[in-house]
């Protein structure tokens, strides 16, 4: 799409919005969380074209660098248009439901509650309510933006009429090159929350199978975890039983610079997640030229495309052999990296931004027509 066409899209957006703002509502804002980062990214992109897109949420964790406030400070003008980022039932969603004001829904997918039943019972209620409330939001949201085709299916099933798909925009600077790449010989990387549906235990099993052939294979798990949770405890016990506790490192939630460094020092990105509404870490792996081995679940196949090797079901032994093959074959690595570059370009800001402008304009017009 040409620069002129993109400019026209933004002009149309500003014209439709008039003097109003695009007010983004979110459950909680915390940099590093995929939904929060998406709202912050929209705010920055929109501010470049002069559109104000403040963020309001129940809690605003400092350190995000965005214009954001607690929900109780929200004051709406009649010209404002609401965007609800939805991934779980929240005070923000309750507010939209109580106001009965037409809203644009940005749907990030709600993790099915069954994934939390064993380890995080508290999340079962929140996610159950999040899914159960979708049909009632369909009445309030004349336009819904799903972040993947996988998520769009949820919205169609819930009765949303106008559902569009728009991938998450990963800012160009997000995985910017910061020095020479120093990849360790055989470090596998998983990035993302340490949560039951991410199946981190499968990665431990894969590591165990890999290490019977190559003892230098290690696993870095980069992402937030709750040290007191039963799931985290079970992972440690599993690592210990499998004898891989010295080969796995739980880095936790890290600074952006260190996050990029973790990607740049790894050799293969691996995820066995059973549910992904989009899968930002996959996009980040494509950006930093990491071959991907992933489970064919949720939105993963549509994000990875033909750039990675996908696996059906839970077969850590086969996954390990695939990983060992990639580690041993630099030519295969290079072919996967080349395909990754092509795939990453598909999600570049240049490709996605005109669609974002167009969708938001349609959303503004749809809410105003109500």
């Amino acid at each position, binding site marked *: 799409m040409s620069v002129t066409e993109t400019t026209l899209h933004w002009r149309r957006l500003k014209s439709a919005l008039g003097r109003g703002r695009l007010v983004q509502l979110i459950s909680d804002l915390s940099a590093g969380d995929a939904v929060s980062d998406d709202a912050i990214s929209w705010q920055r992109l929109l501010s470049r074209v002069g559109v104000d897109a403040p963020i309001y949420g129940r809690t605003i964790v400092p350190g995000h660098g965005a214009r954001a406030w607690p929900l109780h400070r929200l004051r709406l003008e009649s010209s404002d248009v609401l965007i609800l980022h939805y991934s779980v039932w929240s005070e923000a969603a309750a507010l939209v439901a109580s106001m009965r004001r037409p809203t644009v829904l940005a749907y990030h997918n709600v993790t099915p509650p069954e994934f939390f039943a064993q380890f995080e019972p508290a999340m079962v209620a929140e996610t159950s309510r999040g899914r159960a409330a979708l049909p009632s939001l369909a009445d309030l949201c004349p336009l819904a933006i799903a972040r993947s085709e996988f998520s769009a299916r949820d919205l169609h099933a819930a009765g949303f009429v106008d559902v569009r798909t728009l991938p998450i925009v990963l800012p160009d600077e997000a995985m910017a090159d910061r020095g020479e790449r120093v990849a360790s010989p055989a470090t596998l990387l998983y990035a993302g929350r340490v949560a039951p549906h991410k199946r981190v235990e499968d990665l431990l099993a894969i590591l165990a199978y890999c290490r019977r052939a190559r003892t230098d294979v290690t696993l870095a798990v980069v992402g937030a975890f709750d040290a007191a949770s039963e799931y985290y405890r*079970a992972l440690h016990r599993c690592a210990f039983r499998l004898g891989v506790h010295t080969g796995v490192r739980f880095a936790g939630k890290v600074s952006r610079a260190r996050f990029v460094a973790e990607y740049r020092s790894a050799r293969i990105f691996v995820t066995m997640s059973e549910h992904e509404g989009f899968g930002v870490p996959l996009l980040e792996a494509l950006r930093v030229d990491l071959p991907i081995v992933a489970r064919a679940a949720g939105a993963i196949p549509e994000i990875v495309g033909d750039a990675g*090797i996908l696996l059906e079901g839970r077969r850590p032994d086969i996954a390990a052999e695939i990983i060992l093959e990639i580690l041993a074959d630099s030519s295969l690595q290079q072919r996967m990296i080349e*395909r990754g570059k092509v795939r990453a370009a598909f999600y570049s800001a240049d490709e996605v931004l005109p669609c974002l402008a167009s969708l938001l304009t349609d959303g503004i017009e749809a809410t105003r027509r109500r």
Partner: protein
Amino acid sequence: MLSVIDDIRRTVRLPEGLIADEDRFLTRIATNLGERPPLDPDPAALLQTFGGPEPRPGTDDATYYLMWAQRLLAHPLPSNRQVPAPGLHGMLLDRLRRPLHALIRYYVDAQAARQEEIATWLVRAVTALATAEIEIERLRARVESLERASGSPSHDRT
């Protein structure tokens, strides 16, 4: 071998054209799978019972928990540094509204979370030892009751 290759073919989704000779690639994987030494415990089997009821904690578990606590203690957090907001306006806002809140969220929360994690591992270690001790006592009592029932003389268990 053929059934193993079929199994692998059903599991692995190779993108078109990525591997020049897919059959050879899959055969090599099947061969490697067959030649690898077995693991004890079998990771695939362990996944089936992951998170389920755990066997009685023993001293191994206690050692492991203490190892994690020691590892955390050995790597203290970087010193607290307050990052100033850019510009005069930002500095003024910081002074007026955010310092206490930011201080708590950045530093105290992080320290507290770390302390909590260390405490969790220590508590687990102590719990594991205590559980083991209770089990030993229970077994000792059981042995004594069996001895009494069988009429055989007690012997020194010290």
